[in-house]
């Protein structure tokens, strides 16, 4: 069987990679993808623990995570579109009229 720690480390790597995406990519859409990756990594944890504990709560949590993630993507992409209409860019580096 697979030790839980391995799954945790795997999920953590995924989490870190997703985070890197959020931190480094200039394309707002890819930033969004990074967030999706992070959410997925959390989900892996939930499923793994659910299995380990023999408890359904984790899986249920996972389902809700997916639902929320879907909702977030919808809203996020809508925001990006609205922004693109106004600014003609989705480069997150160029979105800085407010600062200071």
């Amino acid at each position: 069987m697979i030790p839980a720690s391995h799954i945790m480390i795997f999920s953590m790597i995924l989490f870190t990679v997703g985070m890197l995406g959020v931190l480094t990519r200039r394309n707002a859409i890819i930033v969004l993808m990074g967030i999706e990756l992070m959410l997925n990594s959390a989900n892996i944890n939930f499923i793994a623990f659910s299995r380990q504990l023999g408890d359904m709560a984790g899986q249920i949590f996972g389902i809700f995570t997916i639902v929320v993630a879907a909702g977030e993507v919808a809203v996020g992409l809508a925001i990006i579109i609205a922004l693109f209409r106004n600014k003609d860019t989705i480069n997150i580096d160029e979105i800085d009229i407010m600062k200071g």
Partner: protein
Amino acid sequence: MEASAIVFYTLASMAVVSAVMVVTRRSAVHAALFLVLTFFCVAGIYIVLSAEFLAAVQVLVYAGGVMVLYLFVIMLVPLQARPLKPPVRHVAGSLLLAGLLAASLISYFWNATPSATAREMGYPPAGGGNIEAVGMELYRRYLLPFEIASVTLLVAMIGAVVLARKKV
């Protein structure tokens, strides 16, 4: 090593590699495709972990719904008009930060009591198949969150409509 373990490690490494591809590909389309691949791998891992229903949801929602949405938007927004090259130094800094965080987390896991982390995977929750179990839980015990989730989706819907349509 068991078969399931072999499958897990394979899928896990694939997922990690494709996740790295997601965050490093210059083209958003490529990134999206690698994201789909990652999701598939994760769905496989769900199956290994006996969460078949979740794996199905993962594939349906992510690979089916979310990905289409992504691709729609990517097509809508002419991304290639401008090169989007992440500055190397920025990446290095982020890597350092993420590395630091990862290191601290890993040191954490090592230091943590074995019981919590090194436990072998247990058995799937009892009572019928996974789908049935999920269904029973979801619609009885977790009915209220489920209802709220419907509101969540409604909000997302309103949001998409309000923000994406051209005029108020």
